[in-house]
């Protein structure tokens, strides 16, 4: 009996869970093995942070540039918009021109937003 030939059911995710469990075991095992193999001769200099041989001043937990934050927040917005296209793509033949009109309106707003952030210079990396 081949159960997965049935329609879309949660059972399809069972093999994924098996692969996940296998992946976790594999990764944990490898890290543990490599931890026990190999020499252990720790010195304070060796365990120090390497910054090109220059002594570290302060530590790395310092504020980063805001532009990375801006990229991340724009990514969240655009990502959600992209996700909306997936259900459409699967039904788009049966939805015909009416569905396409709805999506065109959505894309217009998408482009309007894109044009706005483009003109405002939010995508410009060098200030």
């Amino acid at each position: 009996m081949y159960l997965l030939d049935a329609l879309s059911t949660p059972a399809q995710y069972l093999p994924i869970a098996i692969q996940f469990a296998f992946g976790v075991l594999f990764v944990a095992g490898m890290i543990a093995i490599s931890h026990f193999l190999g020499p252990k001769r720790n010195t304070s200099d060796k365990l120090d942070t390497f910054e090109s041989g220059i002594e570290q001043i302060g530590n790395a937990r310092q504020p980063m540039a805001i532009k990375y934050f801006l990229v991340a927040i724009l990514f969240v917005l655009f990502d959600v918009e992209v996700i909306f296209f997936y259900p459409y793509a699967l039904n788009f033949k049966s939805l015909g021109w009416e569905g396409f009109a709805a999506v065109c309106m959505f894309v217009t707003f998408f482009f309007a937003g894109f044009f706005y952030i483009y003109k405002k210079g939010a995508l410009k990396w060098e200030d």
Partner: protein
Amino acid sequence: MLLSLFTDWAFLLEKLTLVVAVVSIGLVVAMYSTWAERKVAGALQDRPGPNRAGWFGLLQPFADAIKLFSKEDIIPSKSNKILFVLGPGLAMLAAVMTSAVIPWGDKIVIAGREITLQVSDLDLGVLYVFAVVAMGVYGVMIGGWASNNKFSLLAAIRGASQNISYELAMGLSLIALLFLTGTLSLKGIVVGQQENGWNILYQPLGFLLFLVCAFAECNRTPFDLPEAENELNFGYHQEYSSMKLGFYLFAEYINMFMSSVLMATLYFGGYDIPFFNEAASTLNPTILGLLGFGALMTKTVLFILFFMWVRWTIPRFRYDQLMDLGWKKLLPLALINMLITAVVVLVKEYGWPW
């Protein structure tokens, strides 16, 4: 339903074998990619490349693995120790998970039991891949932050920004493909291509966009800014040693392998053998399945070689150029490609609306 699956030991055993096989294939191909990378680099730079360990240096990956295992495992004193170990683990785990939805071949028959060469044919296969790619960001970010090294942190944030920026264009270029296939299942996409011809014929621009995004997602040259040695010493894995470093490097090669398989599956017919009608053939299904697997691997190896060829040919982008390309060029292009594809398909289906 689920209970009957649990009691179906043969089913569980089949899937477990398949999982082990699929993960091992990924690891072996990644291992030999490191060898091939050096061989290709050697060929392009007119030198022999690795040739001491075994015939043609074929044992080189094993020598590397033994070396990485026997190196001292350093956890810097100023790092966050738990997250420092978690980082490479997450990177490797995300790399290993992609292969679950890829159809490696049609099916083979062992002892009267049909075995589909796919761990799970999810209805949402493409979205699943997308989700795993999204998870790949964490390995880099956690590892870079936990190192407590300024270079690592900068590289990690660079890498994460780059990955998320190119994910958008990647998602949009796939939607144009989905208009043609009408399914998110990777198996369904391959079967559709066997009937209607490869998707590359209908989606050349979409493929190009996907290719560029795949390069960026794998942190491969020309997009290897998280590992830009001249700016960041060594990149986000600067503080790592031993197999943890090995995991980061390995995850990258597995990702390259997986993107090659994906490109072959989505745009180049997957396990479809060119100029050969599988449905009409009278071959034994097992032989046919293995031939299909061979076809997929051939396409994949060609893509991997292309990845390497590009790496040793093209110099690295500047970071602002990279962001410009991702946001200002690829994203609008992918959107326009999507709309044009939609209009063409709808006109073919229903004619003009007026």
